């Protein structure tokens, strides 16, 4: 069964701002799904529709097999959420926050154990107004974990955390997935989802431009090569020649050399073309395309 399913989701704000332009998403139960895209691409709008914070202009969504609007309360009973743009209650302590979730979901859980698990055991008696941004994020994660939810929706969970904190979040995500929970989490940084996600979906300007596994994305990006060529002198002619080689998708000039993206073309062809035209190649190396570049290529529209 699908944990999350959307059909043709459109969302228009105030009549003319199109936030979502037909999102068809399918997330399997038990899957860890990374929802990627630059800020403003529509990730939070999609999540807000799943939680019935926002109503779609067109289309529908089901979560855990239930209608996102009609059965929202039952969905949220079985879902743990770390929302985007939230604020904690400054005058309540960490323990009171977690207890509020326990009361709301009518489950039994130990607030102190949860605070311990997210790495802020000292926060139980302190009011949240004095927390750092990272502590607030950890507290909200503890609240999302209450009652072993079937689905975790984490919107930019690494916000405000240092790299160690971001790693701890990934560990918790893995633990939750091992327990059998479905995890849907969004990020604008691919690296953060790379290690834990079974599949990722990439969103750009309200449209889902790719859904695949990390390996699949890598493959789809070609043999993933960037060629770095150092030249004795860089001239416009050299750039033109390289651009003319079949398979070359992008050429940029940098520090006395050229960085060449080669799709499915031959790298040696680039080098021979340069030398045939009389340019002196002093050095060259190939670099594997990083995931970040793949991500950029989807989100910046060069594909």
């Amino acid at each position, binding site marked *: 069964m699908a944990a999350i399913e959307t059909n043709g989701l459109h969302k228009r704000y105030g009549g003319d701002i199109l936030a979502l332009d037909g999102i068809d998403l399918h997330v399997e139960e038990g899957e860890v799904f990374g929802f990627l895209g630059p800020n403003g691409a529509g990730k939070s709008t999609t999540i807000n529709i799943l939680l019935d914070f926002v109503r779609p202009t067109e289309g529908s969504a089901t979560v855990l097999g239930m209608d996102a609007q009609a059965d929202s309360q039952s969905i949220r009973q079985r879902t743990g959420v770390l*929302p985007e743009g939230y604020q904690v*209650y400054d005058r309540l302590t960490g323990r009171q926050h977690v207890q509020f979730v326990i*009361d709301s979901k009518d489950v039994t859980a130990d607030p102190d154990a949860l605070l311990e698990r997210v790495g802020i055991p000292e926060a139980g008696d302190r009011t949240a107004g004095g927390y750092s941004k990272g502590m607030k994020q950890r507290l909200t994660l503890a609240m999302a974990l209450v009652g072993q939810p079937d689905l975790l929706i984490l919107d930019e969970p690494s916000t405000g955390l240092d790299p160690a904190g971001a790693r701890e979040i990934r560990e918790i995500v893995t633990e939750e997935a091992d327990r059998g929970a479905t995890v849907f989490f969004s990020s604008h940084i691919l690296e953060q989802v790379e290690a834990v996600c079974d599949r990722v979906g990439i969103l750009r300007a309200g449209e889902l431009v790719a859904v695949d596994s990390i390996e699949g994305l890598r493959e789809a990006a070609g043999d993933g090569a960037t060629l770095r060529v150092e030249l004795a002198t860089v001239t416009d002619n050299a750039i033109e020649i390289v651009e003319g080689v079949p398979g070359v998708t992008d050429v940029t000039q940098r520090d006395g050399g050229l960085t060449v993206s080669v799709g499915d073309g031959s790298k040696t062809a680039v080098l021979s073309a340069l030398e045939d035209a009389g340019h002196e190649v002093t050095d060259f190396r190939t670099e594997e395309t990083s995931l970040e570049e793949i991500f950029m290529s989807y989100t910046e529209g060069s594909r």
Partner: protein
Amino acid sequence: MSTLAVAKKDFQDALRSRALWGLSVLFILLSLFIAYAFAEFTTEMGIEEQTAEGLAYFLASQIGLFVSVTAIVIAYKAIAGERESGSIKILLSLPHTRRDVLLGKVLGRSATLAVPTLIGLAAGAALGSVLMGEFAVVALGALLAMSLLFVVTYISIVVGLSALTGSTSRASMLTIGYFLVFEFLWGAVSFGVVWLMNGFSLPSEMPNWVFLVNQVPPSAAFTTGLTALMPGDIPAATDPDFQAFYATPWLGLVILAFWLVVPLAIGYWRFSKADI
């Protein structure tokens, strides 16, 4: 269950408001002062007979202002503030419907305001009763019950107004505007209505139905409703002296019931459709 969880959280939260406790200390001191003055300076104030019922009315005189102002202070941000800051996302990530959230807010903030109100009234009633050597259970009980209803009503109005918007500055304008029109300036509004109905001039004698218009403000309805519950035959200043179906102090309770339900219902209607 859901409503109660929200109410409990909200009560814990609002109870820590410093503004609430500042106003409350003021109100409790004022109640004690009023009770003392009523018991000790009865004749100087031109009151003919010193009774425990009289004490109850005297104590009631401060409720309207304290409850209305404090309700606005502690509740104008109830929904708008949570929407503006984003804490509503925590609230609505949990299995609460928007109706649960509104009702929980009304319950939680009412409990918050009920604490100082009841403490102040009980303290004033105790001091006055001891000084006078007379304790009127029914009259003071009626005052407490009516005050509680008034507290819930006012909180419900303010929460309802707060649910209309996602901006705290707009919520403060709405609630202060409400207070100005329905409490502070209502005398002028009432005159205006008469002037309008009389063809743009004031009649030599005020028509009877002005009584009805004058009961519209919640604090006026509170005072009028109190006389309906009060035992004894102390004629309150607001008692109508003419015959009409509405010429009864019970009208106060009807009007409070209106204020209890209608603004909250409108607020719910808007809030339930809003994107947050």
